[in-house]
């Protein structure tokens, strides 16, 4: 089986997500939940609190730019892997916010610890997710089903097939990592 490498770095990938709004919403009936998340890994010499403080400092600079149609904040839940939550009314603004928040984290030296940008959508009442993994620079689909840590793999396959023309996706299912317990 051929796995073509189609990747995009952080900025281009988030921009691609913003531009796929039309296909996602009009052609695929997939609607943003108006939020996205950036999953950050703590540094090995940090505890949860220190990691959060470091990220909050980085986000201060991001939020300093006022007058934007979005909001970026640190998830307050006690979590060893902190989440940066972005909120905006439409997908383009949301992907902009995610791009800028990621760049802010990179400027603060946290960029290498960003594990994923997660975009939740709703399709026919089901929550589906696109996960951008910066280490491999591609989006992978994730659809948890009702069972414990179960996934709707046929739907994931359909998602990837439907969107691969406009998003950098991986066709290699070995890279389709789940992210359980999402705060989104």
């Amino acid at each position, binding site marked *: *089986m*051929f*796995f*073509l*490498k189609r990747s995009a770095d952080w900025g281009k990938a988030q921009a691609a997500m913003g531009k796929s709004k039309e296909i996602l919403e009009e052609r695929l009936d997939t609607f943003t939940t108006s939020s996205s998340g950036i*999953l950050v*890994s703590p540094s090995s010499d940090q505890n949860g609190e220190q990691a959060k403080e470091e990220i909050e400092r980085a986000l201060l600079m991001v939020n300093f730019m006022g007058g934007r149609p979005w909001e970026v904040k640190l998830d307050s839940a006690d979590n060893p*892997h902190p989440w940066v939550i972005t909120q905006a009314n439409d997908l383009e603004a949301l992907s902009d916010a995610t791009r800028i928040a990621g760049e802010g984290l990179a400027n603060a030296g946290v960029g290498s610890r960003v*594990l*994923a940008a997660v975009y939740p959508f709703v399709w026919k009442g089901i929550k589906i997710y696109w*996960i951008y*993994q910066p*280490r*491999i620079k591609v989006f992978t689909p994730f659809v948890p089903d009702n069972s414990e*840590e179960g*996934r709707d*793999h*046929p*739907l994931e*396959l*359909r998602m990837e*097939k439907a969107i691969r023309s406009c998003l950098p996706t991986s*066709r*290699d*299912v*070995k*890279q*389709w*990592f*789940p*992210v*359980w317990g999402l705060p989104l």
Partner: protein
Amino acid sequence: MNRPRDLGRDTQLVTRMVITVILLGIVYGFFLWFLLSVAGAAFMLVFAIMLVLFQFMMSDRLVLTSMRAKVVSPDEAPELHQTVERLCAAAGIPKPKIAISEMQVPNAFATGRSQKHAAVAVTTGLLSILNKDQLEGVLAHEISHIATRDVQVMTYASFLSVVASTLMSLFFWSSMFGGMGRSRENGAHSYMMIAYLVTIMVWVLSQVLIAALSRYREYSADRGASQLTGRPMDLAAALHKISGSLTGLPKQDLRRAETLNAFFIMPAVGDGFARLFSTHPPMGRRIEKLQILDNELRGSR
């Protein structure tokens, strides 16, 4: 069960199958002409016909025995029987024998010389990894093979290839033990060498064409299964699991995986020449085609 969804004919697939059969006919026609013009080859032809007929008549028993599959009653495997019964009713064929093979390798197959003497077998490995819908997809694929008489088609298609293979063995052993006219005049030796080369050429060509035909029949059975169940993506997911791809679908959370060296980009591995002899299409291509069928079905709903 509802009436099967009408996906219509895949004209491209049918055209490819027809062209392959015509090419096979040309190769076989040449080979028959050649065999009948070589002294002694007519005897080989009769021997090969008997061998193939025996295999054909006994195919269900031979295959089930070789796969250590045991025919199970409705009491032993009620769900399996119910699913097959439903699918057969939809396909309009008699219910075949159902067998389970105690093998951990996930697989399923259909065998038998006719629709009335057919059998569908699944391995315990397959039953353990597929959910109900995915299993139905796989069974529908096998039922589709029976409905379109694929076992017979492939037997007829490979008939003269078996003859060529038998002749190749004969030529080989005869050359090992001083045959091929070496002890006789050089003319006879050359004559037999040509016969050997022609047989090898026919065998290789027929293998390529039979493999191509078999791949088209697989696509056709996938299409038939999609039509029977109306859910191509369940078969796609089952194929993923059977091929081992789904074992590669990570269960581990991304956060835990970061500590492992799990971020490999799979290299693009091509197997162009080997693919010529493969009887099954590449899994990715089959899944892509199933996705197209899924879109067609969704569009028709």
